[in-house]
């Protein structure tokens, strides 16, 4: 009998330890002889380092060493980019520690090793750093002026311009009967994880082996970078993945500390651990999202989109980090969203500023660009006197157009296509679930002192980032199986999901499977968890490895039973000969059966798609917004575990709501971070958004992998900005309020409302 774990709401095996407080996160490790690292970070956004004097610090009892750039022969190395490593970006890459210049508040200057964090922090106060301040570049406008340069030798603060092109936008605009041009901006957010980052390194001088705990997301990539920076062979380094308290794109990239801590451990010959505190986390972990756009759309009078063109500026912060270009590329590539736009000419310029460098945060570029596009669409529909739902319906890519090629991104000529789907279905289902026809009667009405507004947004979510993933299956002596994964766990529940996939593929009980993931010790090669890829890519690799193992089992059973392999009937973990003799996997468990498999998708992404609808009430006096209902419907191709999937979609939606209404990393004109605590950077709490619903469908499996699954970890966050900004604008439409900037913080919306009320 075949299993059907895939598709079932299997309870997570991870939870058995998490709910008892038995998870093991990197800060839970404390080997003998451990030294604690604390980092002195720049309090100046832009300046020249004149001197660093640590003499008084090293005299403190319990302080073991202070490490600065001077301790690195040949100067501190730079961290190479992982994604889009274009030569143009090279000069903007970050050194592992500041050497002659500091370029953002929070940049590492010195590392203290001490017997406790408290003693280390005492020592920080005794290090004297003399920095000659330089005028800061705190926004894209100042950056574009070019009179204050972060990298003087470059002669510019502009790192790159990406272009997205298809058709002939110039020609289309020349003859268009209707055009509209608008400017929008999104603020700075980041993928705050509840567990701050942490690294622990142990150097074994006798064997030349380095063990690094605290790895996440992309341990194999990071090992490659670290090996190069440390001058070690890759196999001399083991990256160990512990339990990880959230990823969201930000955690697990190669940061300066991922070099500094191993370097320090080798330097002093003792285990060294660094655990980030929350203030550091706010200024040191990758930021994201800050972009502004000047965009223009061309349509026929009856609402067919003819062309889209425009320009966006992205505030990159001080350095090009490992995945720093992804958000900007996505702003260019996905401004057209799930819609048929035959002519596109969008370019996106990356400007360096004296702020924390950017990287990816769940739905990178897509959250931003969905807000830009869906706001624009509502304005267009209003101009043309068209129903906002019909306008979208008319322009969604049709099922008959699949696979649908999207705009080409340059300079690297990246092409992509939507894989499968009927985008009308999620739109229709969402309208029904939400009760659009009935609720939209409230549109723009003032009821009991609150303005009601409703809106929608359609989206696509790229997933299954290529190129490849690996998995291994081993039959243990006791008849159980161990699955080893190149994918990483960042809290999504991959142990459970991969066990489900493996149990179905091997036709054995779920309880017989153990899943090992992330660490570089289980497999020769692995890729990790980013771009909504773990379930699709890792899961497909498990299927391949399991099939290989069953083939090995068939061959071995045939030998044992003295029958040709093709005569065996294979089912339920048994090989049965024509005469009825049979061998089970357990019978052969002593033979060391194992198989490795890999899955390559030739970088063909999957595209989950969907629609989100929102209903808000805006207090006419205070501008407080209540989200009365939010519904998102998506089609993820195939659902492996409805529980974990639903959790991803709802969790992402609420994260998105935080980004719409409260989360913002604010800087002043000197490049000082003003939101340096969780009392300033406001994450949603349990009372904020109780009315969020999500429905996931599995109507159009992806043709690009054996599971038919599509990446689904990010879609929940993508449409939130557009749908909510439209809903608030619609609520206040009689006052002429049009939202053009996120986040819609209480003061920002209140002043918009004040201005509108005053002029009304």
């Amino acid at each position, binding site marked *: 009998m075949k299993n059907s774990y895939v598709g079932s*709401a299997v309870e*997570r095996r991870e939870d*058995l330890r998490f709910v*008892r*407080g038995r998870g093991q996160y990197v800060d839970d490790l404390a080997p003998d002889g451990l030294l604690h690292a604390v980092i002195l970070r720049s309090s100046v956004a832009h300046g020249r380092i004149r001197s660093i004097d640590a003499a008084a610090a090293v005299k403190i009892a319990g302080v073991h060493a202070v490490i600065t750039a001077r301790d690195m022969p040949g100067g501190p190395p730079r961290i190479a980019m992982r994604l889009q490593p274009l030569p143009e970006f090279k000069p903007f890459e970050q050194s592992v520690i500041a050497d002659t210049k500091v370029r953002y508040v929070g940049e590492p200057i010195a590392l203290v090793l001490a017997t406790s964090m408290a003693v280390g922090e005492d020592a920080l106060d005794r290090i004297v750093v003399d920095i000659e301040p330089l005028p800061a570049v705190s926004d894209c406008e100042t950056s574009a002026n070019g009179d204050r340069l972060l990298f003087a030798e470059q002669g510019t603060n502009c790192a790159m311009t990406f272009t997205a092109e298809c058709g002939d936008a110039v020609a289309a605009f020349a003859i268009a009967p209707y055009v509209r041009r608008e400017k929008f901006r999104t603020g700075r957010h980041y993928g705050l994880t509840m567990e701050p980052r942490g690294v622990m390194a142990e150097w074994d001088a006798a064997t030349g082996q380095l063990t690094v705990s605290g790895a996440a997301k992309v341990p194999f990539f990071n090992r490659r970078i670290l090996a190069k920076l440390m001058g070690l062979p890759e196999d001399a380094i083991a990256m160990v993945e512990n339990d990880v308290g959230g990823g969201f794109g930000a955690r697990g990239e190669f940061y300066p500390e991922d070099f500094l801590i191993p370097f320090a451990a080798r330097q002093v010959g003792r285990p060294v651990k660094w655990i980030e505190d929350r203030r550091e986390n706010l200024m040191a972990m990758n930021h994201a999202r800050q972009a502004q756009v000047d965009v223009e759309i061309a349509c026929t009078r009856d609402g067919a989109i003819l062309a889209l063109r425009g320009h966006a500026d992205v505030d990159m912060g001080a350095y090009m980090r490992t995945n720093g270009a992804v958000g900007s590329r996505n702003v260019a590539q996905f401004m057209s969203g799930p819609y048929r736009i035959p002519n596109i000419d969008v370019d996106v310029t990356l400007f360096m500023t004296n702020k924390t460098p950017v990287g990816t945060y769940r739905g990178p570029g897509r959250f931003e660009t969905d807000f830009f596009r869906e706001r624009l669409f509502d304005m267009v529909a209003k101009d043309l006197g068209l129903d906002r739902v019909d306008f979208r319906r008319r322009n969604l890519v049709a099922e008959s157009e699949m696979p649908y090629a999207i705009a080409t991104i340059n300079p690297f000529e990246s092409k992509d296509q939507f894989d499968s789907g009927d985008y009308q279905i999620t739109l229709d289902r969402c309208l029904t679930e939400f009760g659009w026809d009935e609720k939209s009667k409230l549109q723009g009405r003032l009821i009991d002192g609150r303005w009601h507004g409703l809106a929608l947004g359609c989206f696509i979510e790229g997933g299954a980032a290529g190129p490849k993933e690996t998995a291994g299956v081993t039959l243990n002596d006791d008849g159980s199986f161990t699955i080893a994964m190149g994918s990483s766990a960042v809290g999504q529940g991959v142990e459970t999901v991969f066990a489900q996939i493996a149990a179905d593929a091997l036709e054995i009980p779920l309880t017989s499977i153990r899943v090992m993931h992330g660490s570089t010790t289980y497999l020769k090669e692995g890729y990790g968890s980013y771009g909504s890829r773990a379930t699709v890519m890792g899961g497909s690799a498990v299927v391949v490895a399991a099939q290989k193992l069953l083939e090995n089992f068939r061959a071995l059973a045939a030998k044992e039973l003295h029958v040709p392999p093709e005569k065996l009937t294979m089912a339920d973990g048994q090989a049965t000969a024509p005469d009825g003799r049979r061998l089970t996997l357990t019978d052969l468990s002593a033979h060391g059966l194992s198989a490795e498999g890999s899955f390559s998708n030739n970088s063909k992404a999957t595209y989950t798609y969907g629609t989100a609808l929102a209903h808000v009430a805006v207090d006419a006096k205070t501008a407080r917004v209540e989200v009365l209902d939010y519904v998102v419907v998506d089609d993820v191709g195939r659902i492996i575990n409805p*529980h974990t999937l639903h959790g991803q979609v709802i*969790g992402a939606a609420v994260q998105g709501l935080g980004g719409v209404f409260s989360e913002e990393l604010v800087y002043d004109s000197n490049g000082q971070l003003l939101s340096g605590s969780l*009392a300033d950077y406001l994450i*949603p709490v349990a009372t904020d958004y109780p009315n969020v619903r999500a429905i996931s469908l599995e109507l159009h499996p992806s043709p690009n992998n054996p599971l038919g699954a599509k990446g689904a970890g990010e879609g929940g966050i993508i449409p939130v900005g557009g749908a909510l900004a439209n809903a608030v604008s619609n609520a206040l439409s009689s006052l002429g309020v049009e939202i053009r900037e996120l986040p819609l913080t209480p003061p920002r919306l209140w002043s918009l409302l004040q201005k509108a009320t005053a002029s009304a």
Partner: protein
Amino acid sequence: MPVSFEVNGKRVTVEVEPRMTLVDCLRHQLRLTGTHVGCEHGVCGACTILLDGEAVRACLILAVQAEGCKVVTIEGLSNDEALTPLQASFRRHHAVQCGFCTPGMITTAHALLTAEPDCDADRVREVLSGNICRCTGYISIVEAVLDARSAYRTPESQS
């Protein structure tokens, strides 16, 4: 200086610096690592423990302030044999993703349900609003806590 208190039913005496927080003492000296540290400034609630039965933030209390108190951590609310009804409810409702906020959530919810086993959804949300979860969006957590209420109405099923 020495400080003595009860942790999960066991009396302990620990040598601490006066400036050491209770959460650092629990995690680093007593090696009870189930209590997590998420912000160290009293906002996130990951370090929530029970101090004389009340849910408090162990990052805002000095270890020396626990002198003579009864401290219960997530380890004290757990056993090897089976999940408690509250823990099982968290699992059943998929109220856990990365697990980092979970011990604080469970401890806060345990204190609430012990005192108010008949609380409604609004009350659960209000009390849990002091604990930040970045993964779940809270909906499943609120459901899990509501679903566990019945277990707290009969004294013997409390842990």
